[in-house]
């Protein structure tokens, strides 16, 4: 089984085989012996890599694998061949539109721009209040506001689309 993993922009190819109860994972010119065992709680794994032990909490949502191990939190994208092919096609559709989304639920306490406004990089677009802090959300680059999707005073959910810039 072949997988493509991506983490922090680095992409690598892995080949996984099940032999004699173990997993043999090859990447580049090296092969690792893995013993991966699921603990009774359904999300924790005991992972042995060539005898080295790791306590891993893993959340697998299709190609998004979120890991807690060695004191770190990793979000790794793992595609199999079929998914990789499908994503390669979909990737061509990406345009010049950028979305500003709420990173957390909160209240829009101020809207600093209107539809049609030109904005500069670093300009405050929206002030979102959450957890008792007022957080100015800034433009990541220059552009024009093409759509406003929130109102001042509105409570928004995490991930809610606030506005679009082109």
């Amino acid at each position: 089984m072949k997988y493509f993993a991506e983490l922090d922009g680095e992409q690598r190819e892995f080949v996984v085989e099940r032999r004699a109860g173990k997993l043999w994972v090859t990447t580049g010119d090296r092969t690792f012996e893995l013993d991966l065992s699921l603990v009774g709680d359904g999300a924790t794994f005991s992972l042995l890599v060539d005898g080295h032990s790791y306590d891993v909490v893993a959340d697998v949502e299709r190609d998004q694998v979120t890991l807690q191990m060695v004191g770190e939190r990793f979000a790794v994208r793992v595609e199999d061949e079929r998914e990789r092919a499908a994503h390669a096609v979909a990737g061509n559709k990406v345009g010049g539109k950028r979305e500003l989304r709420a990173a957390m639920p909160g209240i829009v306490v101020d809207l600093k721009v209107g539809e049609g406004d030109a904005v500069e990089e670093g300009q405050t677009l929206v002030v979102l209040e959450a957890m008792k802090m007022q957080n100015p959300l800034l433009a990541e680059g220059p552009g024009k506001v093409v759509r406003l999707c929130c109102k001042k005073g509105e409570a928004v959910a995490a991930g809610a689309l606030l506005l679009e810039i082109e």
Partner: protein
Amino acid sequence: MPHFRRILVANRGEIALRVIRTAQEMGIETVAVFSDADRNALHVRRASCAVHLGGSRPAESYLDIDKVIGAAVATGCDALHPGYGFLSEKAAAAEACRAAGIEWLGPPPDAIVAMGDKVQARKIAMLAGVPLVPGLQEDVDADRLVAAAREVGYPVMLKAAAGGGGKGIRIVREEKQLVEAFELARAEARGAFGDDRVYLEKFVTRPRHVEIQIMADKHGNVVHYGERECSVQRRHQKLVEESPCVALTPALRERMGAAACDLARAVGYVGAGTVEFLYSAGEFYFLEMNTRLQVEHPVTEMRYGVDLVREQIRVAAGEELAPVAEPRGHAIEVRVNAEDPNTYFPSLGRLSRMSLPGGPGVRLDSAMFRGLEVTPYYDSMLAKLIVHGEDRAQAIARCERAIRELRIVGVSTAMPVALRVLHNAEFRAGDYDTGILERIDRSLTPERRELAMLAAVAARFLVAERAGAKSADGDGDARQRVPVWSMLGRGERLWRNRS
């Protein structure tokens, strides 16, 4: 004979639990209060009694003095512990307690007023001979502000007069940002504290945040329990605290301790309080006094073998302060906040799984439980991890070990950042300042990246395998069938919708 019969705990989260624990150990009953969002909270479940206050917004519940005091009266409480935040630094709450014949487990209202207004506090400190940061202003408006900032020189800090605990503070580095920042700070202060006064202070370079824990009884005795070093901060929210502070000499420690006690005496203080100082290059400057128990008080408790909540209760009951024991070893606290470790944005969600640290020298103060919903209504602190070691090296190693043992699933925390702090050369050398977090190297080694990829690939393979893939090379079936654990996950989600 218990000191009080029943204490109302006017707070929530870990600090409410902290107070309940000590009260239980002293044979005192506790009454919890709760908002709609906190019906199932651990402080409600652990208290002797519980009273529902109302809506989930703080103003409708924990900040509503009439409701809180009303609950205390209705349940026959003879004392009230405000914890930190909420009513803890509201003189009106202390007054209302007094009027209702209920002992307020905090300082007298006058002391709260005197120290709560940061401008007023500076004046008192100056009179008491406590050194101050230069450049502070009063009667601040936009015009005076610009002039004053030019005088003390950039960068400057804007602070809410009614703020505290890092809330309502902004750093301004250039004049062109000053007025907008001032307006934002005022708006924030108005929203958070109902008081929009904001003042300006010189930003001391490479400062350390060092604070002194004091305690005063009703007989005029004031003692201090040494210092806490709280320089590991982001957005002025502390992340790692330790005691002792490596930078202090015994002589300096004594001078700071004496200054803190002098200030407490100057305002007729009673109970637990913290005097915060900026420390830089052998000098210390008064920042503010927090007239309540501090979040990081366990660091002091671990070193001095003292239960500060017990002492609060004892002195409120009129007893004399117990002598301060010799401090031992080194203590470190790490705050476990529900937040994104990169953006520090709050991470909301449901705690679906937890695994807690244990073993020697480890203390966890937390109100976490499996199933807890982390909501936007309250602050994001889930827990405090405190360790004690024979010396600083052991405490650091122990803290690292305990952080690795702590697993929280459902929301993210800044524990990876805390681990980097503990590994950081500046931190290990003890030579750091409040800017340390900005300088932390967050990059991953290639070995770590490879390990994470290996683990992720293996986890995905196992999911597919368990979901019923028929052959080793996979024929797509793996993605058709529902893996067993996603069934479990869905069950929990279904459940969540119904509860």
